[in-house]
């Protein structure tokens, strides 16, 4: 049975460093110097935009200032998401050619590597289902979104799960273009998302969801998940990526 490394390395008040770590891990996993890894982490108030998005178009800058929300760009595609401490982020890095995702198809990466989270959420009693292209829904509402890539010789998949986030801020800081909402017959982004707390009707911590997802990953993929730490190389690379990329306005806000 394969053992995956579990890391809880996070910088809640430094989303730029969080994203630097997010890139450092798959790069080193792809070199064969680190094992298959799952990471869990949080950001305080932050909008994370996809690598192809325009910050100016997607984000309400004024509302970000008012709510002290940071803006950071990730290295994967997909849409903007709002993170706060009630949102749980997870990331899976597997070396390319891993038997779980043998192909090179990004859609099958999302489907396969969302399964662990879906199973975890179901164990908690949330009726979670994969919704193509890259979401997890409960009764038609989005509770989690994923993004990913195949690069650096790595299959990389990450996602965020709304556990008990403040959805009122989410509605303010993200500009959702009218054309996006038209088909869904809802007036706002806030009405088409839900949280684990709302679905269960009780208080639930991100730690409880994290533990359920670890169980989900183990049972779903037939692997063992054991706590570990980042290597010196990963930490050094994260620091370098922080300095040269993620702490820079030109990466985060342009175009």
């Amino acid at each position, binding site marked *: 049975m394969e053992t995956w490394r579990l890391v809880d390395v996070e910088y809640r008040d430094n989303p730029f460093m969080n994203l630097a770590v997010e890139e450092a891990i798959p790069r080193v996993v792809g070199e064969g110097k680190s094992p298959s890894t799952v990471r869990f982490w949080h950001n305080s108030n932050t909008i994370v935009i996809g690598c192809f998005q325009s910050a100016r178009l997607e984000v309400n800058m004024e509302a970000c200032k008012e709510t002290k929300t940071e803006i950071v760009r990730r290295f994967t*595609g*997909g*849409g903007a998401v709002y993170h706060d401490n009630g949102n749980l982020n997870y990331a899976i890095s597997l070396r390319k050619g891993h038997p779980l995702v043998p192909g090179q198809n990004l859609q099958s990466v999302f489907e396969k590597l969302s399964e662990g989270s879906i199973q975890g959420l179901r164990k908690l009693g949330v009726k979670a289902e994969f919704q193509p292209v890259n979401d997890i829904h409960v009764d038609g509402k989005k509770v989690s979104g994923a993004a990913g890539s195949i690069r650096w010789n790595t299959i990389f998949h990450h996602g965020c799960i709304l556990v008990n986030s403040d959805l009122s801020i989410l509605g303010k800081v993200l500009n959702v273009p009218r*054309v996006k909402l*038209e*088909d869904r017959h809802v007036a706002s982004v806030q009405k088409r998302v839900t949280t684990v707390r709302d679905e269960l009707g009780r208080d639930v911590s991100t730690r409880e969801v994290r533990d359920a997802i670890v169980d989900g990953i183990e049972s779903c993929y037939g692997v063992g998940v054991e706590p570990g730490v980042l290597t010196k190389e990963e930490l050094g690379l994260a620091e370098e990526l922080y300095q040269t990329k993620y702490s820079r306005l030109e990466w985060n806000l342009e175009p």
Partner: protein
Amino acid sequence: MGFELKTELLHSISATKLERLRFADYKAPGGKLVRVRLREEQGVIRSIKITGDFFLIPEDSLGKLEKMLEDVPLREAELRLLIDRFFRGTGAQGLGVSSDDFVKAILAAEV
């Protein structure tokens, strides 16, 4: 000096007369958004920026596509040929967006 001023004036007049900025927010089947901002001069794309919430790997191939689209006529046949060639040539993989969606998004761009 007078001559330079006149030349500058001519440039600014020709720029305002011939160049147009065009924009589109195009929703691909499946819901992903392709946002196009382009500078057009007499029916030819001079520069283009494509943004959105789609997936495309390798990620740096989008910049290559934007570069390839420079000086290309804003016509369906030419765009389709070039964008198909981009996907074939680079082996890029789109998810939530296809070659056809890029063509449609660019053609949807309005002043």
